[in-house]
């Protein structure tokens, strides 16, 4: 065996940190990159099809704006409890973090309900033509992310009531908040493609 020379000791290091210092943050960043690439490509496919299907939309009414606007407003507002929860977790505050998690679970559930109404008012079917197909694809793609984050948030919420949080889990809450921010931000271009594209292109 190769001979060794001890030059330091690692046992004093902390066992967690927040944001980019944490390992999980990088894992989640990886998944956000993957999903972001998926969104970009779906957007690319959208513009490719716009070039082939004229007029856009082909003889249908664009998706009704009402629920789309409501969804956009609510998801933007959800950043407020999101940022608050993030802050509470960074300060290891037990009860406030749990309350924040409940609020975020509620926000997710409300958004899903609105999303259900949006699907009713798309005014096209996925099998009508490529326009309908891509509109549905974009909506489903984004909805999957809302569902995923809601599932994750619910799970952390339940865990937080049964087990006392350790540092790693507070850090996990922060990562979950980052992911939710991603879900909010990706909605803006996708919502534009779904609601504005058919009106402006």
């Amino acid at each position, binding site marked *: 065996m*190769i001979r*060794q020379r*001890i*030059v330091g000791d690692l046992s004093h290091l*902390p066992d967690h940190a927040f944001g980019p210092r944490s390992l999980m943050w990088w894992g989640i960043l990886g998944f956000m990159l*993957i999903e972001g690439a998926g969104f970009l490509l779906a957007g690319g*496919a959208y513009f490719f099809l716009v070039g082939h299907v004229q007029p856009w939309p082909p003889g249908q009414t664009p998706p009704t704006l009402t629920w789309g606007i409501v969804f956009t407003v609510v998801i933007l507002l959800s950043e407020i409890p999101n940022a608050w929860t993030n802050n509470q977790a960074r300060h290891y505050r037990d009860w406030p973090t749990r309350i924040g998690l409940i609020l975020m679970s509620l926000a997710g559930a409300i958004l899903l309900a609105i999303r259900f109404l949006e699907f009713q008012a798309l005014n096209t079917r996925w099998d009508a033509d490529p326009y309908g197909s891509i509109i549905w694809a974009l909506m489903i793609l984004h909805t999957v992310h809302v569902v995923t984050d809601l599932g994750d948030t619910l799970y952390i919420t339940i865990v937080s009531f049964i087990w006392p949080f350790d540092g790693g889990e507070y850090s996990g809450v922060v990562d979950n908040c980052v992911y939710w921010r991603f879900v909010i931000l990706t909605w803006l271009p996708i919502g534009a493609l779904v609601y504005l594209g058919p009106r402006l292109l």
Partner: protein
Amino acid sequence: MTAGQDLEPLEDEALRERLERVWAHPTGWRGVLTAVDHKVIARRYIATAFVFFFLAGVLALLMRAQLARPESHLIGPDRYNQLFSMHGTTMMFLFAVPVMEAIAVYLVPLMCGARNICFPRLNAYGYWVYLFGGIMIWIAFAMNVGPETGWFSYVPLAGPEFSPGKRTDFWAQMVTFTEVAALAVAVQLVAQILKQRAPGMTLSRMPLFLWSMLVTAFMVIFAMPAVMVATTFLITDRLVGTQFYNPAEGGDPLLWQHLFWFFGHPEVYIIFIPALGMVSQIVAAFSRRTILAYPAMVLALLANGFLAFGLWVHHMFATGLPRLGDSFYTSASMMIAIPSGLQIFAWIATIWDGKPRFKTPLLFVIGFIVIFVLGGLTGVMLASVPLDLQVHDTYFVVAHFHYVLIGGAVFPLFGAIYYWFPKITGRLLDERAGVWNFWTFFVGFNVAFFPMHILGLLGMPRRVYTYKAGLGWEVWNLISSLGAVLIAVSMLIFIINVLVSLRRGKVAGDNPWEASSLEWATSSPPPIYNFLRIPVVTGREPLWEGDKLPVMSGLGETERESLCVSIVEAEPDIRQKSAPPTVWPLLAAIATTVLFIGSIFHEWAVVWGAIPVAITLCGWFWPGRPTRKALKERSA
């Protein structure tokens, strides 16, 4: 313990015992199903990938048997369609990409001086998903519902109209399986390489293999979603009547081509760039000198990665793109020859300048350089549009990509196997058999594939199950088939060498090649905790720096932990918990399999199939410690 103090052997013994307790894991069947050690998973991964390689090789032999003579009746057209589709699909999705990632799963944590891979459970999950996807497609193939539309499954041929039945759906879902697995590994490699290196291993001291895997992992992350989007659109077109690719409704088959090649071209580099990293390690070790022009080598890898994304359109010259588009992609395609060429020069110069020992791994590297230069030449030829139009869809193309894939990836891979086999198993592969393995492969390969260039120029199209006599194709086809037989002989030598050496090979010791990177600083095979203490890096070639390896103590000695460092300077930052063995990744992979296969038959499987997946994920992340209630009772 104070810094700089020499160690007593007894302390090592006590530490070893303690580490064994902390990193203990179940044995027997439970051990098999719950393993999360990156070395165990990687060994399975590598073995599985090679099984798929040999299976696809058998299909290639069948094709060559059929094509050896004109108007042969060995294999009918429908079966032949499935043969080349399964061969290409298996080679690309189940062998080439997975085997490169598998080797990285083994080596990257060791080269980083880490105790385990950064997300051990995700790692296990990725392997299981890959395994189940591969088994699924091969069972489908055995039941005559294997893919039939080639490895890139162009629509409309692969659409609902011309490929009825379930064959193409199985193909599309197989892609989904393998992409999930590949992405799982890619995320880990990024996190591992950026966050979990040895203290002191700054970015500018990283071994080139780590650089190559970092670039590859990012490429996987950006390229693979394209094929997932593409195949998802395909499967919904086929199952629920979406119209993405249906020209009758304004959809466009070209959308498939764009999406597919946005993945498909980088795919070639995803296979090739890890091979470049392997070559750099091997060249350095056997020339006994550090690779020349390290910064330029790193830049070349990065350039390869970036350029690869600009090139997908060169697969579509025959589709009639706008003129300017053609010229742009032609020059971009030719440009990529520059970083590749630069690396080749650096290796040759390194060998020249060092004291080379021509052991089997280095032989394979030299074989790689020779073949790759030839394949690169035909590639630059194909990048020019007029020539591409002439030989499009002929055997010239088949020859070209086998030169690139086999020369560029499989030869380095074999070199890598000979090089790292002693680390993985503790025993060396036999040198004499290795030399035979190399020469039969090298000669057989050229005999099998060089004639295909000529066949292509003579006008023989690819993907034909037979041809008429009298076109001047007979001789070249026969020669090609004989070459394929020689490759098969070479593979037999390899298999026998592996099986015999596993039992009776020369015992390797820690560092049989006197190489410089950290994986050689531990025993062969490494213990489950990889390193007794965490190695510290002070230069680019850590094991050539002095006779004592600097190390740090106190990590992972009382519970399963790994070390997080700062990204650029690799300063120790966090003791990260490392997940213990568990069966949940396996269960999650089974649930995922049910979802994917279910969705081939019913679209709502995506919804109800998600429920078991969610349940298994809960099990996966379940915190195993006292609840609030228990703590309260205890304190009361």
